[in-house]
């Protein structure tokens, strides 16, 4: 019963967003800002949405991805453009290392215990890097000068303004495709079963730890790539206090819950709503955006406990457009 039709509205929304950015003057940066939130929502959704487990250490995966790219560009600049490739490899490698270490141990724990176990990961890594003065310690890695020297200011500029954005767009599209692939395959059904009732899933032959770990690793690798592109490449610096800021974890959780956990369109819609609200509130009411955003989100979550897409799906059941919503 493979159903890839929901990919159509997904790709249409991506296209509209990018078209707005490309065609409306001054809209490129706001669109990229929104796409960043879509991306962190989609990556977290693959774990949180599909397993029901909350990963409070989520931002640490963006962080190690940012460091992977940062280290490659800072210390292996002589590789030329190859340093970017190395950065991608390092980001993925760090994410694999961290997710295997954390997931292999903590995913044997249930629900809330897993969440508690992951809280320490982020803070621990940040203090390790700062305290042990790894990769510049609390001073971070500053790449703007290095990149200018190595690639010339024009190409360095091109990297941070164009390549970084295209990279992020690619991640968003690919994570959407990964999501629908999971939903349509055995892994998706295994995750659905364990999210609903882990014990029943076990006696039905599902190796729950294995499937949780798979979802965790996929989510982590995508998160690391977001860190590598939207942070390191785009900003051209990596500061531990920025890339391990727990606020991003909370924002990603909000996006997933708001849009609809475990759905394809959920984190996309959630990310757009959250990103747009945050962007415009910070323009209209700078400094007060959280004061407005928080109650607004509470209202939405109360009205749509299953997220916006969960609600829409329920309303559209037994209609012809149902198969396009997932």
């Amino acid at each position, binding site marked *: 019963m493979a159903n890839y039709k929901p990919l159509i509205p997904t790709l249409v929304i991506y296209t509209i967003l990018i078209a707005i950015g490309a065609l409306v003057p001054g809209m490129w940066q706001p669109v990229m800002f929104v796409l960043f939130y879509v991306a962190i929502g989609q990556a977290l959704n693959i774990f949180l949405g599909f397993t029901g487990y909350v990963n409070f250490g989520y931002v640490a995966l963006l962080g190690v991805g940012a460091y992977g790219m940062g280290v490659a560009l800072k210390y292996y600049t002589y590789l030329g453009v190859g340093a970017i490739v190395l950065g991608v490899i390092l980001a993925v490698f760090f994410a694999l290392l961290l997710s295997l270490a954390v997931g292999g141990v903590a995913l044997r724990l249930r629900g809330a215990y897993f969440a508690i176990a992951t809280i320490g990961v982020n803070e621990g890594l940040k203090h390790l890097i700062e305290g042990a003065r790894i990769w510049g310690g609390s001073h971070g890695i500053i790449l703007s000068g290095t990149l200018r020297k190595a690639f010339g200011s024009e190409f360095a500029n091109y990297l941070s303004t164009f390549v970084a954005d295209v990279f992020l767009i690619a991640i968003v599209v690919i994570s959407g495709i990964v999501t629908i692939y999971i939903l349509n*395959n055995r892994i998706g059904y295994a995750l*659905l079963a364990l999210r609903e009732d882990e014990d029943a899933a076990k*006696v*039905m*032959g599902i*190796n729950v730890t294995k499937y949780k770990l798979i979802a965790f690793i996929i989510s982590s690798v995508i998160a690391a790539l977001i860190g590598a592109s939207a942070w390191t490449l785009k900003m051209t610096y990596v500061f531990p206090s920025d890339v391990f800021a727990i606020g991003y974890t909370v924002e990603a959780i909000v996006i997933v819950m708001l849009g609809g956990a475990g759905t394809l369109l959920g984190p996309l819609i959630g990310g757009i709503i959250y990103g747009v609200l945050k962007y415009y509130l910070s323009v209209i009411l700078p400094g007060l955006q959280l004061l407005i955003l928080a109650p607004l989100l509470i209202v939405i979550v109360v009205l749509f406990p299953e997220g916006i897409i969960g609600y829409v799906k329920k309303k559209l059941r037994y209609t012809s457009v149902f198969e396009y919503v997932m």
Partner: protein
Amino acid sequence: MVLLKLEGVTKRFGGLVAVDHVDLEVERGEALGIVGPNGSGKTTLYNLISGVYIPDEGKIYFEGKDITDLPAHERASLGIARTFQIPRPFGSATVRENVAIGAMFGRAKAGVEEAMEIADEYIKLVGIYELRDKEARLLTPLEKKLMELARALAMKPKLLLLDELLAGMNPKDIGRIIELIRRVKEEENIAVVSMVEHLMHAITKFAERVIVMHQGKKLIEGETREVLNHPKVVEVYLGKRVV
């Protein structure tokens, strides 16, 4: 041929010995009934066989292989399936998806498309085909039980453990379900162990052999009618004559 063998299996919860040195053998394709009053250790016994608990003492063999320490999901792959006393559907999934998950991960290990076909077959068999696109949490308790039966059968088990499947059903449904289980058991050569607390009448129609559990121990074992009329069994259920 012996399919499942328990040797001196014991499970304690603190000071309570829920299952106390139980020996048990289930033949391939056999219909076995386990009866016993509330708290006699029946459900714990099922949990030990299906791998929810690991026994404190004793050994469990399935097709001659020691499965005592095997995790639940590997036992399911070997061919052990069960239903739950209180049904545990995957609530947000449809009936069809629920049953298909059984076919995907049990012994059948089917791909998604094939699993959906297997699911349809068993949903039809238990008679809830018209509910196949409904979310499982919206079913009535009886429908949930039938769905769990279909889900367990879709796993293509060699051993099917039914936990109070018939409890709460009306006599007409009981007759239909017993007939259905009998037929599937013959067709697919499944050993069916059915556990009941009070439906003695149903068990006589179904089981070839019965084991009576009492306070975690095997009280008596043998041919169904003989066992159920045994004075010890009557005593367990009704108490001793005091005057």
